[in-house]
Structures are given as structure tokens and as C-alpha cells.
């Protein structure tokens, strides 16, 4: 798993139940736009993050297109922890603290 993908996962796991727009992922990871979207597309395809469109009522009221939020799923939280722990252990480094923060990820819908 690339460091870039790890950084994206960190952005989701840093706060429990956090939902992020693409722009927020870019701000949190300081990666380029063209870098994070393929990562988001892949993570979504694997079911590690789930996306939803903003309520059309809100965006309509404000006359703008709806934005898309993403958040980590239970599978994603577990998968990230396993994969990233493995990566850090392989390099004989201590596992970072953010990895084991609890996420409000039960009952993914």
C-alpha cells in the first residue's frame, strides 16, 4: 500500500465517523487532486470507504451542484489497521497512534 493511500486512510480514521468531501481529503493529506481521486475511487470500489451525495434539498436551495461525502466503513477501518500495522512492523517502526483510534463504524449502511 502506498504512503499516499495510507495518508488518505489516516484522514478518514483521524476522527471517529468523520465524513469528508474530496477537498477536505486534499487539505488533510496535502496531496494533489489528481492523486487523491484515483485513491478514493479504488477505496470505494473495495468497500473501504462509502460515499454519499449531499442532500439534494440543500444543494438545490443554495443553487449549486450537490457535493459528495466519504467516510470509512467497518471493513475499511479493519483492513487499514491490518495493512498499515503490517507495513510499520515490517519496517520495525512503532505503529502510529491514529491507527487505533476508535471509529464509529459499526453497522455500515
Amino acid at each position, binding site marked *: 500500500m502506498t504512503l499516499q493511500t495510507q495518508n488518505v486512510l489516516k484522514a478518514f480514521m483521524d476522527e471517529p465517523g468523520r465524513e469528508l468531501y474530496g*477537498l477536505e481529503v486534499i487539505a488533510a493529506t496535502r496531496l494533489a487532486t*489528481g*492523486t487523491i481521486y484515483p485513491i478514493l475511487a479504488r477505496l470505494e470500489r473495495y468497500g473501504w470507504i462509502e460515499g454519499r451525495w449531499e442532500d439534494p434539498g440543500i*444543494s438545490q436551495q443554495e443553487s449549486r451542484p450537490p457535493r459528495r461525502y466519504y467516510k470509512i466503513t467497518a471493513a475499511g477501518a479493519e483492513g487499514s489497521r491490518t495493512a498499515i500495522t*503490517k507495513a510499520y512492523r515490517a519496517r520495525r517502526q512503532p505503529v502510529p497512534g491514529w491507527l487505533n483510534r476508535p471509529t464509529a463504524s459499526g453497522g455500515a449502511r
Partner: protein
Amino acid sequence: MTIESLFETLADTMPAERLRLIERAYTVAAYWHRAQKRKSGDPYIVHPVAVAGILAEAGMDHEVLCAALLHDVLEDTDCPAALLIHEFGDRITDLVIASATVDDPVALASCTDERVLALKSADRLHNLRTIRFLPPSRQRRKSRHTLEVLAPLAVRLGLEEIGAELATLARAVLSPPVEAGHRSSNRTLALGVLLLPEAHRSRWLQEWFGELQAIPRRSARVRFTVELLMGMPRMAVTLRGAATDLRDLPPGRMPRDPQDHRD
């Protein structure tokens, strides 16, 4: 909703022999739709399952659920009506035929079978949830029909949540079009997106327009667009799912050692 979660939902309330009939309906539908795909690229069977899921959540009976799973087999495949009658009986087959033929506003208005109307509402609801894969003119036509006919009908039938969601989704499509015209960032992006596989273009364009609108400064919008364009070939490869870079795969997808017990 997947077929598994549908059966999970029904397991507590549906008697075993009715569940078996619904399973049979799924098997028959999956067989006849096996070569077909939705515009989104998903296997076609995803749609009848989703429609059945919507109706199961609304508490519809097993005949409606069977008809939901089978609702496109007569119209879109070579499945003969005689086969449906033989396996599922007249009542379910009639529901399937009715949901295919009751289409125009006049027929809908004069249709008194609430179960047919529920079927059509659920069908339209799933189609609206996935409407972004259709060309804009068809999206608008379906949305107008939904607002004028189907949404009020669903509400009158007592399917309030379905009716409300139908109306919201239809309005979202018909609301003032995204200002794709006057901002050059939007125009450039609309061109760049042509590199992506067709089925994915509209969905990602929508998301990127949404993000662009949220960027106040022009210089930042330009950077967003330029970076996106530079990453577009990579995005195209990712979406095609081909030539995946193994370093980027989560370990769960790689050939694993026998000690690894996960999955």
C-alpha cells in the same frame, strides 16, 4: 440492497415456502438477465433485486416481491410467459405483465391494482437513484413524469417515503442546470473527463463540479482543475480496473500466505 441482505430482511417474517418461491424468482430472473448489463456497467440483475428490496422495506407481500424480481424478464428477455405461469402461477405472472404494460399516464391513472402501482413506483425509484448514467434529455423526461404522475401516486398509495424520495430525486435532476457554461474551469474539466470510461464520466464530473463550486478563489480553482487533468489518465486506468499497480492494492487483494486467516 443485495440479494443476501434481502433474504436476511425477509427471514424473520416470511414463511419458508414463500421464501423459497422468492429465491426461485431470483434464480429465474438471474438466468434470463445473465447476459445483460445496466447502463452503469453493473450486471442487470442488480436492478430487479434493488426494486424487490425497496418493496420488501415497504412491507409488500411475497407475490409482489416475486414480480419485482421478474418484472423485466418478459419485456427484455426471451423468457416465455408460459414458463412464468408454470413456475409462479397466474397472479404473479399477471403482476409482471401489468408492470410492463401499464406505462402511459392514462393507463396509470386508470389502474386500480395498488400492487402494480407499487411495483412501478419502486422501479422508478431505483432508476432515479441511478439516473446519472442516462443522457441528460432522458433524465429530464423521466424526472418530469415522476413529479407529475408517479410521486403523487405513490403518496396516495400510502408509500410516503417512496413518494418523497421520488420527488426529491426528480427535482434534483430538474433544478437549474449546473453553470457549466461560463466558468472555463468547468468547461476544461468537461473536456478532460472524456478520457474516462463513458459510464463513469457523468458521475465524476458531477462530483468535481460540486467541489469546484466550493472553491472561492479562481487561482485555487485553476490549480484544482489542472491537477485533475494531469491525473486524468491515471484515473482512467483506475476506473477501468486494468493494470492495477500491485503496490497500491490493499493486502487483502494480493496472493496471501496460508497463515493469513482473513477472508
